[in-house]
């Protein structure tokens, strides 16, 4: 059952349309043919009936002697000339005992009187059709009502006409009709089939274009303006699919490239250091020093890999934040407490003002984001300054701004500072610089994205401000 169903589903669109159009059209043509044919038949029947009526009337008049042109002639003669101008018409008159009074040469009309009851009037429903020899006749019998003249009471008149001419015509007409309808049907089917194929051309075209889109050419898009309106939706959704694929591909490619690039330097350092170290005999303290130095580098790499993996998971939407009520002020105060010893040593202070209602968020993630922002601010703050954290809220959002005084971020770097491994100070790029991985702000942005919030940064007049807007309600937004 299932197999045959899927078999049916796989029938080509062209075949489907052709079969449907074919069935519909053939039914119409068949009905049309039948109607035309029956009308023609009826038309001839009526024509025959009319002719027979005229003949019968003429015969009747002749039999009665009403014919004004041959008043003296006897009934035989009268009947012989009763009908003129009609071809292939036969008639006969029988008396009340069934004897033939008169009969034109031709088919045996007595046969008619034996089988058909005489009527008073000729009516198309009472015409009788038979064949004799190679000719087909149509005829009927009427009673010869004499009116006041009783001489002919009981007499019958049989009239018939040859149908061969009509039949030939009908036969010919029927042949032509069906031939014509047949040809038309074939033409229509062919046209339907072709039309469907023609209509499929854009599909073939699209398919051809799609087949050119390889992983290296994911930037290609189909042009919705080049396809029939019916296909615009298909093309648009295909384009958006490719768009999403391109994005993921790009992310993947960037990820690999970033990792490779960021690991190359420390690995070169480590290799060189170990090779140089092994070059000659050294005292144990030197070896130990070398190993400590290596350890730091390893730890930095491990931290970087962990951060990269975290970002990859965030990109792939496999991180599962657990949303709970988080009070930003409490968290910030705790973070400040955590960082206080360090900030004091650096000669900076952190201060929070304002308050906001609790928001729905992942506490660990938000702490991480805020820590990264705070340490970033401390790193770039001038000694002796205070980093101002300001909290505010409206009905829908919590607003957190973190402001530090210090060297500005150059304007051309501003849009890029949330990119992974982006460093404003290029010299920091050298490995082992304070263990910073260059991923801190990228992680911040990821976390804010996960919470459905926004973050932006401004930097002018030695004042750098990071502004975060977080929705109060748990976002439940799927991570792209």
């Amino acid at each position, binding site marked *: 059952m299932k197999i045959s169903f899927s078999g049916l589903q796989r029938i080509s669109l062209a075949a489907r349309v052709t079969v449907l159009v074919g069935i519909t059209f053939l039914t119409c043509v068949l009905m049309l043919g039948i109607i035309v044919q029956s009308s023609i038949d009826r038309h001839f029947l009526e024509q025959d009936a009319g002719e027979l009526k005229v003949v019968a009337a003429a015969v009747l008049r002749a039999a009665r002697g009403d014919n004004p042109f041959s008043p003296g002639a006897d009934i035989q003669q009268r009947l012989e000339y009763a009908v003129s101008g009609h071809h292939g018409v036969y008639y006969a008159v029988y008396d009340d005992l069934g004897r033939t009074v008169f009969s034109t040469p031709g088919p045996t009309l007595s046969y008619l009187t034996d089988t058909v009851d005489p009527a008073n009037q000729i009516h198309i429903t009472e015409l009788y059709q038979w064949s004799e020899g190679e000719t087909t006749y149509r005829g009927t019998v009427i009673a010869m009502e004499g009116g006041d003249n009783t001489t002919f009471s009981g007499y019958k008149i049989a009239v018939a006409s040859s149908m061969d001419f009509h039949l030939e015509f009908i036969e010919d007409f029927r042949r032509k009709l069906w031939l014509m309808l047949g040809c038309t049907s074939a033409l229509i089917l062919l046209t339907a089939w072709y039309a469907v194929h023609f209509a499929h051309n854009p599909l073939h075209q699209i398919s051809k274009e799609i087949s050119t889109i390889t992983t290296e050419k994911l930037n290609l898009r189909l042009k919705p303006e080049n396809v029939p309106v019916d296909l615009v939706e298909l093309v648009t959704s295909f384009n958006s699919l490719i768009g999403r694929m391109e994005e993921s591909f790009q992310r993947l490619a960037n990820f690999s490239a970033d990792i490779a690039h960021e690991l190359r330097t420390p690995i070169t350092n480590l290799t060189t250091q170990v090779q140089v170290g092994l070059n000659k005999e050294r005292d144990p303290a030197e070896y130990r020093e070398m*190993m*400590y130095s290596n*350890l*730091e580098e*390893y*730890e930095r790499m*491990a*931290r970087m*890999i*962990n*951060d990269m*993996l*975290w970002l990859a*998971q965030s990109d792939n939407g*496999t*991180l*599962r934040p657990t949303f709970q009520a988080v009070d930003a002020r409490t968290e910030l105060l*705790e973070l400040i*407490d*955590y*960082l206080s*010893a*360090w900030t*004091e*040593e650096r000669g900076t202070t952190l201060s929070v003002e304002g308050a906001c209602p609790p928001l729905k968020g992942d506490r*660990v993630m938000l*702490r*991480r984001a805020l*820590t*990264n922002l705070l*340490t970033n601010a*401390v*790193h770039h703050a001038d000694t002796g300054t205070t980093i101002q954290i300001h909290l505010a809220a409206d009905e829908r959002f919590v607003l957190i701004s973190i402001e530090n005084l210090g060297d500005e971020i150059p304007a051309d770097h501003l849009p890029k500072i949330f990119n992974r491994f982006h460093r404003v100070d290029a010299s920091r790029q050298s490995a082992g610089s*304070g*263990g*910073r*991985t260059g991923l*801190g702000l990228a992680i911040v942005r990821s976390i804010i994205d996960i919470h459905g919030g926004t973050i932006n940064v401004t930097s002018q007049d030695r004042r750098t401000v990071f502004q975060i807007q977080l929705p109060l309600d748990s976002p439940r937004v799927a991570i792209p």
Partner: protein
Amino acid sequence: MRLLVIEDEAKTGDYLYKGLTEAGFQVVLARNGLDGHHLAMTETFDLVILDVMLPDVDGWRIVKSLREANHTTPVLFLTARDSVDDRVKGLELGADDYLVKPFAFAELLARVRTLLRRGLPIAAVEHLEIADLVLDLPRRRVTRSGKRINLTNREFSLLELLVRRQGEVLPRSLIASQVWDMNFDSDTNVIDVAIRRLRMKIDEPYKPKLIHTVRGMGYQLDIMNED
């Protein structure tokens, strides 16, 4: 303390064996899942450290078998895949803790000790003492050589952690997590600064020095016979 380490990666296995043995544990190393499974089920250990991605019998099966056989041996699993599913799965199956590779050996050691300590009755002491340092826990007061030392709340927590785990090397990440509830790496040397300040208060004017830096690993509080 007898530990079972199930690790198929040769170098990791060797180093875990060496490191844990040097840390004073008696270590049995199984280099594949089958042996590990057999050992775990037939012998008694105080702790099992296992890699979840083993080629034959995977780590999950071993944890499952252990728990189904009602062995309560703590299990610490190591994984290279840092996915939430893996962690949840491991903990649901009855593992007690996990570490994601790459991990620091000091971290592993600290976790192992935490797990081994778990379940032991915590002595309901009011005072912790080491050398002439005394911590009064209920009142959160510290004296050294009888002199009162003023510590902030966090400094006290930090000192308490170090004293309670006397002799253990505590990695920075563990300190951050236990004292400040910071469960992620940060780009700062906050812990170093905090330790330095604590040192200035409790160690600087006194002998013997109690807080020691174990370079590359973390910090340790102990009485050392160096001076």
